[in-house]
């Protein structure tokens, strides 16, 4: 076996270094182009979607179900313990803050909140994928991706993004002229997936 001379070894190393440099240069160059592409893909809804509420008919808005029940059906319980359980079964816990007339039914990671003075629903917070809402007959649940929502409701689905108020972006459904309540579906800017679904009474 022929052993390379010291000079040959030095030459080989230099050549290898050049090859390495070229390889890294190509990778770095590719990275420069690919990084913005991957970044823009991740933030696509924030850059490309129209902004605002998705307006549906008031009859469709009132027909939205929250784990199987409309707002009218939930309001009909007036926050009575037995009536609430007749809708969704046994709750994990119920808490009341008398200072603000608020009663909170907890179902694992989800909450249903009533104002006990008016016996009216004020909030539904859905934070796990066991509870589902139906808008226009189509299911939405925590964990759905934005592209899944687009497949169900159209590619021009509007979004809301006000990072000075909340870091998430949201999809909202409402009906024209309604100033009393709303529905916000929060999506994470990092994963583009639904992280919370909330019905709320305008405070």
């Amino acid at each position, binding site marked *: 076996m022929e052993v390379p001379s010291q000079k040959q070894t030095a030459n080989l190393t230099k050549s290898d270094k050049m090859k390495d440099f070229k390889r890294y240069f190509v990778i770095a160059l590719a990275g420069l182009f690919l990084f913005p592409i991957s970044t823009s893909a991740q933030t696509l809804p924030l850059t490309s979607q129209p902004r*605002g*509420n998705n307006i549906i008919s008031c009859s469709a808005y009132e027909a939205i179900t929250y784990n199987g029940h409309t707002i009218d059906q939930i309001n009909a319980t007036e926050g009575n313990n037995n009536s609430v359980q007749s809708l969704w079964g046994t709750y994990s816990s119920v808490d009341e*803050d*008398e*200072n*603000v*007339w*608020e009663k*909170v039914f907890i179902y694992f990671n989800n*909450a249903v*909140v009533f*104002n*006990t*003075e*008016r016996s009216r629903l*004020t*909030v539904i*917070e859905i934070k796990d994928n066991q509870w589902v809402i139906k808008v226009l007959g189509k299911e939405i649940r925590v964990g759905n991706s934005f592209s899944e929502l687009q497949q169900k409701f159209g590619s021009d689905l509007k979004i*809301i993004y*006000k990072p000075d*108020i*909340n870091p998430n972006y*949201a999809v*909202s459904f*409402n009906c024209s*002229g*309604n*100033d*009393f309540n*709303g529905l*916000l579906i929060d999506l994470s800017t990092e994963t583009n997936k639904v992280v919370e679904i*909330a019905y*709320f*009474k*305008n*405070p």
Partner: protein
Amino acid sequence: MYRLWRRRRGPLPPPPPDDPEDPWLPPPLGGGGGVCTTCEPGDDPYENDGDELCALGEIAYGNGGCIGEAEPEPCEGNPVKNPRIAEQNNIGINGGRWGDTRSEGEQFHSGLDLKNDVGNPWFSPVDGNIDAVAVSESRDLGYYVTIRFQKNGVYYTMQFGHLQNDSWPPNGSTISAGDVIGIQGVSGNLDRAIRQGATNDVHSHIIVRKRTGTGWNTKHDYGDPLNPEQFIKTKFDANGSPVAETDC
């Protein structure tokens, strides 16, 4: 290199919004704002008589926080200088008033929505004491503080919602008109209402109730919400504009 960059590029750009040194950021709550870390509960925020631990030009709030005097002192009887009613985008300024002002008169609004900027203080318009504070965030009203006060021999409560957590004086403490009673936030349903576009105005929802029972329980011993406009100095006309001679 830095000097060279500055010479070539001119002044430095403003710091990023999450820069902790940014003077426009509200101070962290629960103490630590500005140069001080603790304040004596009940300190008069406008007198520097030597016992305050807040720096001159700062005011005490909560359980020992200091905040830059972002808002000038309101006149006695107002919770903020030159109070303004928060507008609802669909129905305008009347939607921020107490009464059947929502959904074309079909929905009752239990309080008065007064505007303030996030991070700015609310001041007690009355002498009284802290009657209740939020132990957790109300899903609707958010973080709140309730003041109990007397007027013409009758007890009332005045509740401020949508505050920042732990921004109020200790529960049960005595307060004077002009004391800071909380810092404006977007807690509760306000966050959602602003994002959805029901309103653009950050505000506190203020509820006043008259004591009608013999005990002190908010739910059992106080009556229906009253119009808070009766209990602040500035009056508003039919259009919701402040009446000039009362505005301060």
